[in-house]
């Protein structure tokens, strides 16, 4: 196999984002008003090129790549093959990241079209997307750490990019402090694992842990401490319950389309990382962490759903809703079963994608309305079901999907996750999860009541330029129905 097959084609989905980002930087150096229009088109080339590259990679049998035995190539290529995990699961992750990135780029461009910092925001988004792909395909702890930081640091900046509005700077600082604290914990756990095993490679660490570690010998304590720190650090990043304090503030303080991106794509990548860390590396000691993550997931669901009950700002309401969804997703994460060496991740992935498009679509609509009215309070949305039937219907479908009401994909996703959990013996967790989603229905219904059962308080006129945003929102809502009837399209 040549360099092309081993290196260039595997990294092409990542490289597409990076190249688009570099092109944007070059475009910014040429300060010409004519190039302003090109900026937006070039930015969209990143995700579209990435989707194309993923398709090409999909065709060229990625499984053959992962079976290549490293050792007979140049040193750097060996190291690359060892650190780059590529199989059919990763490929699905690439699809989702590419698709969600394309739609959120459209939202961002429409929302910030008058802002002078738009090119910088787009450049940062390109690199964040590239980092997300590196993160889900990382195969050693060094790459996990670097990709995670490459993803997180620009995100802290994006949260605070609208300094004057809302409380962007405060949200950004909060997110930064919590995030860097989590990074330190992650780094510490990596150091502990490295000290114990002498390697950063997932598969080698996993082999090391096959040998049963006792509770009292110092090595065992080291591994236990490392895995506990992993739970805390990843819990911070995913916003699980005792570590979720930053999330509502950061999600509310960030500009609406940025929140949409954070809640969908970054959460998707975060769960990709969690999957690799726990099932790719710490699987041999799963008995130790499954129970902890299970209890965290229940706490997360209840904190999210109870916290959302009292919110009147829809942005904050959906921030809490995303906390509760993270709880369901962790339940899915711990109930993954193994057939042979292959992990059954389809159900988790189905829920992740459905949740991602749901969150993205909701924040697309919130962004549209906020752009016109300057507010995302629930009173702004009163009567929108009558004044803007199409938008209202889309929001209704997305909210129903979030609540998990039958004809939508949200229901099927929850059903599949809970069925998985029952099959792997987490019956009590499922009972609690169902209970908490019943609580959740209450606040989702409040949004529907505002949409269809109250008189419009003000007239909202959407500008004609936002048509492409409306189409993207319709696409998200369509996904909710489509994937419900054709789940096999997502590999189920």
């Amino acid at each position, binding site marked *: 196999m040549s360099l092309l097959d081993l290196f260039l084609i595997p990294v092409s989905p990542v490289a597409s984002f990076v190249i688009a980002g570099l092109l944007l930087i070059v475009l910014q150096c040429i300060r010409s008003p004519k190039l302003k229009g090109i900026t937006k088109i070039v930015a969209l080339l990143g995700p579209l090129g990435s989707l194309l590259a993923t398709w090409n990679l999909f065709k060229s049998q990625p499984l053959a790549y992962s079976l290549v035995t490293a050792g007979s190539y140049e040193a750097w290529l060996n190291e690359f093959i060892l650190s780059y995990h590529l199989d059919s699961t990763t490929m699905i992750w690439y699809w989702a990241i590419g698709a969600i990135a394309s739609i959120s780029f459209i939202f961002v461009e429409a929302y910030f079209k008058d802002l002078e910092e738009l090119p*910088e925001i787009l450049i940062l988004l390109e690199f964040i997307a590239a980092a997300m792909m590196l993160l889900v395909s990382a195969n050693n702890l060094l790459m996990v750490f670097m990709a995670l930081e490459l993803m997180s640091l620009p995100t802290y900046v994006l949260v605070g990019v609208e300094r004057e509005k809302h409380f962007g700077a405060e949200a950004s600082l909060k997110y930064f402090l919590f995030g860097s604290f989590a990074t330190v914990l992650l780094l510490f756990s990596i150091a502990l694992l490295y000290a114990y095993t002498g390697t950063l490679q997932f598969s080698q660490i996993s082999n090391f842990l096959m040998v049963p570690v006792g509770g009292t010998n110092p090595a065992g304590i080291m591994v236990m401490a490392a895995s506990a720190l992993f739970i805390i650090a990843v819990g911070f990043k995913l916003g699980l319950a005792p570590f979720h304090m930053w999330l509502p503030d950061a999600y509310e303080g960030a500009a609406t389309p940025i929140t949409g991106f954070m809640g969908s794509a970054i959460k998707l990548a975060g769960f990709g990382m969690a999957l690799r860390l726990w099932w790719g590396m710490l699987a041999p000691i799963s008995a130790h962490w499954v129970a902890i993550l299970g209890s965290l997931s229940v706490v997360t669901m209840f904190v999210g759903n109870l916290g959302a009950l009292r919110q009147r700002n829809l942005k904050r309401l959906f921030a809490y809703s995303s906390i509760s969804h993270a709880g369901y997703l962790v339940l899915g994460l711990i109930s993954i079963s193994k057939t042979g060496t292959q992990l059954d991740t389809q159900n988790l992935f189905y829920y992740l994608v459905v949740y991602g498009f749901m969150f993205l679509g909701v924040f697309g609509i919130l962004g549209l309305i906020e752009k016109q009215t300057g507010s995302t309070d629930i009173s702004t949305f009163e009567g929108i079901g009558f004044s803007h039937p199409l938008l209202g219907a889309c929001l209704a479908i997305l909210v129903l999907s979030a609540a998990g009401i039958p004809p939508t994909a949200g229901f099927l996703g929850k059903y599949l996750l809970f069925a998985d959990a029952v099959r792997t013996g987490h019956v009590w967790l499922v009972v609690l999860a169902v209970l908490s989603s019943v609580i959740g229905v209450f606040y989702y219904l409040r949004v529907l009541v505002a949409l269809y059962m109250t008189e419009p308080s003000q007239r909202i006129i959407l500008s004609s330029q936002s048509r492409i945003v409306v189409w993207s929102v319709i696409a998200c809502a369509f996904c909710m129905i489509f994937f419900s009837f054709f789940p096999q399209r997502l590999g189920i």
Partner: protein
Amino acid sequence: MRETLFMVFSLFTIAAASGVVLSRNPVYSAFSLILSFFGLSGLYLLWGSTFMAMIQILIYTGAIVVLFVFVVMLLNLQTVRENSPNLLFLVGAAAAVWLFSLMILRVLTRAIPNKAVEIPTDQLRAISKLLFTRYLWPFEVLSLFLLVMIVAIFAITRTQEIPQGGEKK
């Protein structure tokens, strides 16, 4: 020659380190800290550990102490007012003496091998070779990281341009 240099660097480091603790002005303390780091890096050089010597200056002097100085300047600290040796001071001194005597005891009671661990003389070359061969891919990702940070800093520090005679957007 080696012994003399060792004595010079050690005495220099100790003198600078006592300057950190004893000076009343926090800025002087920070500068003494820089001096003591230079002395330490001289000791590393004597042992043939060129990489450590360089990193010592680059990271501690170049980054950390500069950060200290910035904090001191920003907070606008005045000279610390005179305190009489109180209980806290005594506890701190006792802890320092205890730690020092422990280390000395350890050195005196253990037979130290005549030859220290052999340090490869060409550390810098070895590290850079690894960076550009085996770890090329992480290294490239790291370079992306630096680029992204530059763009990010532009995005947050950029001030809105105010057009002539107009209001701020």
